């Protein structure tokens, strides 16, 4: 029998990669915003699966918890609140600037891809995350947490400030005029 530990990662990756590509196209191409939002949830879910296959369980869980559980719900709420209807995709004209931006990014990516791919592919196994060492230090979550609260303590605190500011900003921007609705 073949060694499963060698084949399984490839099967997982290629399945997920294919699904992610298809679902991403669906997100962008779906005519109704609610459909897009639902496809986005599926996409985030698949990405979380990919993270989990990269031994990043904590990030995978946070991805679903924050992205799928909170951010996309926010999108869904706003779509329902505004009662957006299907969008007419026909008759959309591409401007030169937009097409140019897309083209330049595409070319840039192709250049980067060819330069990196021309060398020998770096296996994730070689010189990669030392799973044994991380297990000894108390598992992936503990290592991430340790680093987050020591080396990255300032960005961490700043991120909390950013969230606070965003919260205040969102409330101020979205608030209705006081004349229309008395303060609840």
């Amino acid at each position: 029998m073949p060694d499963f530990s060698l084949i399984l990662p490839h099967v997982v990756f290629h399945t997920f990669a294919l699904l992610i590509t298809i679902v991403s196209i669906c997100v962008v191409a779906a005519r109704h915003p609610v459909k897009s939002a639902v496809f986005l949830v599926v996409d985030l879910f698949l990405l979380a699966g990919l993270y989990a296959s990269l031994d990043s369980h904590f990030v995978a869980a946070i991805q679903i918890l924050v992205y799928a559980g909170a951010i996309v719900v926010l999108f869904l709420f706003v779509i329902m609140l505004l009662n957006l209807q299907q969008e007419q995709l026909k008759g959309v004209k591409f401007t030169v600037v937009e097409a140019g931006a897309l083209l330049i990014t595409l070319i840039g990516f192709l250049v980067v891809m060819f330069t990196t791919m021309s060398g020998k592919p770096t296996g994730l196994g070689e010189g990669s995350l030392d799973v044994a060492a991380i297990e000894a230090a108390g598992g992936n979550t503990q290592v991430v947490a340790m680093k987050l609260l020591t080396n990255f303590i300032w960005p961490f605190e700043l991120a909390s400030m950013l969230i606070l500011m965003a919260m205040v900003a969102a409330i101020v921007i979205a608030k209705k005029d006081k004349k229309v609705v008395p303060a609840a």
Partner: protein
Amino acid sequence: MGLTANEFTVQFIATLIKFAIMAGILLQLPPVMVWAERRIPGMMQRRKGPNRVGLFKFRLYGIVQPLADTIKLIMKEEVVPEGAQKAFYHLAPIFSVFPAFLIAMAIPYGPDIHAFGFDVPLSIIRVDVGFLFIFAVSSLAVYGVTIAGWASNNKYSLLGSLRASAQMISYEIPLGMSLIPIVLIYGSLDLNKIVEAQNHVWLWGVFLSPISFVLFLISMFAETNRSPFDLAEAEGELVAGFHTEYTSAKFAAFFLGEYVSMFVLSCLASTVFFGGWQVPFVDILKIDDAIGFTGVGALIGFMSLLLKAGFFMWVYVWVRWTVPRFRYDQLMSLGWHYMVPLGLINIVLTAVILAAIRF
């Protein structure tokens, strides 16, 4: 990774068996709960409740009633409202059932079975960030409700679903906060390790962190949209909330989702606060050796967890028939003005005490 082909096969088959057992139990929940939810209040209010339907001449306390109900429900005509978003209308019940079943997979139902040189864990998937996984997936339950309400093209449904989703998102925060002290105390996100750490009654979460338990219990009701927080389906105001337009088997699917998520949260509550599969005053890990037969400890552990979860299911019913429904602003005020600050205080308090002990 690092699995040999042989081990892979064994684990695969074991997973299939566990999956079949679990699915069997979860699918039996709604009938039993429907019966319990009519008999228990009957007992409480000194009336009989459904006791007629039986097999042949035996009435069996009306235990066959749910079967009759199910047949009635499935035989009904399925009505899809005009102007509904067809695809989402049909998908919404699946969205509401799927997360509940997914969480049910991550709960440890018993100690590991050591048989024939293999270790078989008694949870279907073993996640080393079990807590976060459960939160992450349970936050997806909002979609079923939101999309069901929106796709029905009915203002009652939409209002119910908006209420329900706002409520579920709000109460996810105290629910998460109530469990942080537990993670601090036991020092792990792995549910298995948390259960193993509770090997003595006084080490149970409910004694080490009672405030957490109260917060968890309250948010549990809100998360599952159960009374006294069942504003999503406040029948006096919103007909039936987000599933107003659902009939037949799809309506039953919402029931299934609700009962399974109730059961899963009950299991989580017993796992975190009441020692999971541990039995008080008995070291369950040594039962196998004492009897000399593998799997007995696991079976007893499983029964123990089911018993504890059953108690919480009973609490659900008990509370439903005791406490009147909250008003919506009261609900939000309870969540944001009382439970979130209390949760924060609880976290800080636990952290300070733990630091003092370890110092």
